[in-house]
């Protein structure tokens, strides 16, 4: 099965949020009332019941003007996903499409994925004691349909297809756009399965890490300490046993007032 990629072209996005609505509709995530914060962006951030959100950002241009830029914020579906590495229950897992899905029944609400994610995507719902995020509409893509957000996009800003083809398309589009346009996603964390064509430099965009990596703490914890603790525990157990059968215990000197003690029992 070939890996799939969702391509988001910032230059074609009009911020209509049809994708956001389609996501809520397909995944049955009713919205909650929010308050006006002086931005068209709504809700203000990803939530347990909002797995993708269009970020609205007012960007100052060099000539003193203001540019309105949009960015689809959702799970990036890393190839080397820190959330999958830390998940203790196997709830978060890679699918055959290279995307990262959740088995909601397995989530134990440990919240380990939340701090591990370099894009701060997973959201915890205290009511269900579980974590939620975009699963790239696994129920759809596994039935040869594109994700709901892609289906709903009226401008062609969202596309879905085979990984190689999408990446090639992204680079061609960035080249075509020229200027500050670039491809974001294929060169870190093993390559993401959501790829951006950005019209702005990544550093200029809010809440977007310029160089996302699997956190060093996750590597220290899962790649080094985990095997080390197993080896260490095995070594002391084996060492104690070997000591017992070779050197033997340290015995009290025999004392005629108490012989049972030397035999080691209560």
């Amino acid at each position: 099965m070939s890996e799939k990629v969702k391509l988001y072209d910032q230059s074609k996005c009009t911020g209509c949020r049809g994708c956001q609505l389609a996501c809520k509709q397909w995944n049955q995530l009713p919205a909650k009332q929010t308050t006006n914060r002086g931005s068209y962006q709504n809700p203000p951030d990803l939530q347990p019941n909002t797995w993708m959100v269009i970020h609205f950002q007012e960007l100052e241009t060099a000539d003193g003007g203001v540019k309105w830029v949009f960015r689809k914020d959702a799970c990036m579906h890393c190839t080397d996903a820190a959330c999958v590495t830390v998940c203790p229950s196997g709830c978060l897992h890679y699918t055959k499409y290279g995307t990262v899905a959740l088995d909601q029944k397995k989530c134990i609400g440990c919240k380990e994925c939340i701090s591990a994610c370099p894009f701060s995507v997973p959201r915890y719902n205290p009511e269900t004691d579980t974590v939620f995020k975009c699963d790239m509409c696994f129920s759809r893509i596994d039935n040869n349909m594109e994700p709901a957000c892609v289906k709903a996009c009226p401008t062609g800003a969202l596309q879905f297809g085979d990984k190689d083809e999408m990446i090639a398309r992204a680079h061609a589009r960035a080249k075509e756009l020229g200027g500050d346009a670039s491809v974001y996603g294929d060169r870190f964390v093993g390559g993401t399965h959501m790829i951006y064509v950005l019209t702005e430099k990544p550093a200029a965009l809010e809440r977007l890490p310029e160089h996302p990596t699997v956190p060093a703490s996750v590597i220290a914890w899962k790649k080094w300490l985990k095997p080390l603790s197993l080896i260490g525990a095995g070594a002391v157990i084996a060492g104690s046993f070997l000591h017992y059968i070779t050197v033997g215990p340290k015995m009290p000197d025999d004392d005629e007032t108490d012989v049972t003690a030397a035999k080691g029992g209560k």
Partner: protein
Amino acid sequence: MKKGLIKATSAYERVVHWGLAISCIILFISGLGMMFHSFNFLGTPVGGLKNLKLIHNYTGIVFAVFLVLSILMWWREAGIFSLPEDWQWMICAGGYLWPVKNPPEVGKYNPGQKLFFLAVALCGLLMVGTGIVMWFPYRFDLPVEFVRWMYPLHALGFFVIFAFFFVHLYLGTVGSPGSAPAMFSGWVTRAWLKKQHPKWLREEEEKGTLIVSGTHENHFSLKLGIIRIELW
């Protein structure tokens, strides 16, 4: 009760010891079930991994309470090294690990036990601290970089505590026969004390505070603000 046995620990000491030990073992098992996918099955008997998480979290509170009681109870006797004799003991591991002719005499706690106490006290506090952050990572408005490092530190604490725990288990039972009763009945033999803690035996005898079975009838004492009523 056999005559001539010597009282090595009070009931309070034993209760605190076992409170800490049992909570620690529950934490080992439940933590292991979450640390390795291959140990996920440890959650099955309690109805799933989520329950294992809850057991781990709440047992952590019990552990924290006994840890504080342990530190308050033992830091004077087991938390301070007396040099150079403790160092000399360390070099030969007190004769526990390989035959040593005349290891330095030790008091109530030998330097190995002191090291174990310090490791559990310090790593235990680390486990409680990191554990609270892991339980409530977003309650305290902590930077994500800080929260992230709690997990490897928690794993490091497990590594250290488990290694010491198992050596302690071995040397408290089959590796040093006669030791275990000190933490069950509290009564040990004179021969064992003479071999393992001769200085303590001598000092207690000199002070006349040694409690020997068959020599006292009803004993009533006050220690550390805890009323111990011991009848035998």
